[in-house]
């Protein structure tokens, strides 16, 4: 059953190893001598640059989102106020909106400042949209910490800041790891923002795959290989963090 479900995905993989004429052959052969020519072509072309762009923009945005979001989540978890729900809802809302709602203003603003087609620009966008995710995901982790440890340290005269850094953070380390991976995934998988906000310098891998759909004919082999390469990091990371995927995707609204 697994094979049946995954067969479309496996089809893409096997196509990336076929030579071009085999791809267009009808009936499609299932057994064939594999070739690495598409992968080699990709690595020596602009595709490797786009891969790097994806890597950079995803990593930096994850780092910044964590930097800003983890302390904020901690602060929120201690807050007993009623407006906390309103804030929570606002955070959820930003994740629910389709990207088109934000692209025009971003496009115009970036054009004006000169951040169009730059990795920095992408990092800013991804950070902003991963920030709510970080806050939302880390809150439950902080909430489930027994307060006794913190209280003891605070009474002993430690500042909140120190308590946070030395006691609390290590305890939620697995949560931070999981959140980091989820942020990376979202940034890596993004298509729409990269499509609109980049040209050729900061083009990311998902957009680069689409670039093989030429006017004069789609290069199926390269598309298949490109697609396979783009999904490789994602597969590796998500298999590592599968336990937290559900809560990440439901933004923690359901304790799962």
């Amino acid at each position, binding site marked *: 059953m697994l094979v049946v479900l995954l067969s479309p995905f496996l089809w893409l993989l096997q196509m990336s190893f076929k030579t071009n004429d085999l791809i267009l052959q009808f009936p499609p052969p299932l057994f064939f001598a594999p070739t690495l020519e598409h992968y080699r072509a990709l690595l020596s072309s602009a595709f490797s640059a786009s891969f790097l762009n994806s890597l950079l923009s995803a990593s930096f945005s994850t780092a910044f989102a964590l930097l800003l979001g983890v302390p904020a989540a901690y602060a929120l978890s201690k807050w007993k106020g009623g407006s906390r729900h309103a804030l929570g809802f606002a955070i959820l809302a930003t994740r629910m909106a389709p990207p088109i709602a934000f692209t025009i203003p971003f496009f115009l603003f970036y054009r004006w400042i000169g951040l169009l087609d730059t990795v920095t620009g992408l990092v800013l966008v991804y950070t902003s949209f991963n920030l709510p995710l970080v806050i939302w995901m880390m809150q439950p982790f902080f909430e489930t910490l027994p307060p006794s440890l913190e209280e003891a340290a605070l009474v002993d005269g430690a500042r909140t800041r120190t308590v946070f850094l030395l006691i609390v953070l290590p305890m939620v380390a697995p949560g931070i790891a999981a959140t980091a991976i989820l942020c990376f995934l979202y940034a890596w998988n993004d298509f*729409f923002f990269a499509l609109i906000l980049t040209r050729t310098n900061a083009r990311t891998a998902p957009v680069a795959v*689409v670039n093989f759909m030429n006017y004069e004919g789609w290069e199926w082999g390269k598309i298949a290989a490109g697609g396979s390469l783009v999904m490789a990091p994602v597969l590796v990371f998500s298999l590592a963090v599968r336990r937290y*995927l559900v809560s990440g995707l439901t933004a923690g609204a359901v304790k799962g």
Partner: protein
Amino acid sequence: MIGGSSAAKGSIDADRRSFGRWALAPSLIVLLLVAGLPTLYLLATSLTPYQFVNPGSSTDFSAPLRNYRLLPGDPRFVNSLWVQAKLSFWGVLFQVLLGMLLALLLNVNSRFVEFARTFFLIPMVLPPIVVAVIWKLIYTPDISPLYYAASLLNFTMPSLTSSVDFALTAIIIADTWEWLPFTFLMVLAALQTIPDEYSEAALVDGANALQIFFYVTLPFITPILVISGMFRLIDSVKAFPLIFLLTGGGPGSVTEVTNYYAYLLAFDFNEIGYSSAVTVVLLLLVLAVSLGVIWMGRRREAMV
């Protein structure tokens, strides 16, 4: 000692509050800027007939409700809402049902199954554009194994993505494939919290598997089914890469969802003002559903 500790507590609280403010402020500022400003801009733009090539149109507030008044009379917009409704309804339905089925079947406590289960996640974590590429390969007659199989069976299959009747179905299938793992995971998690005594007691009472399912399992997982359905509903509005790559909204406007229509308006026709109005309507709809989710989640928490 008491006086001393309450004073100490007071300063702890003060220190805590100040830390809290410092910790929260940067995030709030960023969120306000990044989410708040563009939303205001969107609203403002939806009140203008802004087009790039008409200078001055970006600040033309003379007829603020013009775009909104044009919406109901725009058959393409109304059509896009219908298409979206169909896509969301059928997509969510299949995702919930099939996800539940899969979870029931695989709710087995064996190491092998648990290991295999992780691979079921793959469609969900793939970059959406890669999912679109995969299905493009499957739906392109010249190179698709599907069409080859059909031709072997002497069955001429129409090109699904260019067929009026099947294009949307094709998208629904691809979308379901992509998001099945989501409902699967959620239902599985819920299934694993059902205490065994319930089904054991039912067995002792002489119930068969089907009755166990309907009277024991289903009530337990219904809230999860509903919630995962709602999450998928909200997310289904964002459907873009599949439509972009597979059908371009066609044939005709059969697969043109509201999100895609807004994209075309903004980036192909450069009718920024009108596109903003379409987006605002879409956002309001999404907001309404999100509120529903929160309310339901709150109710469930209250019940548990």
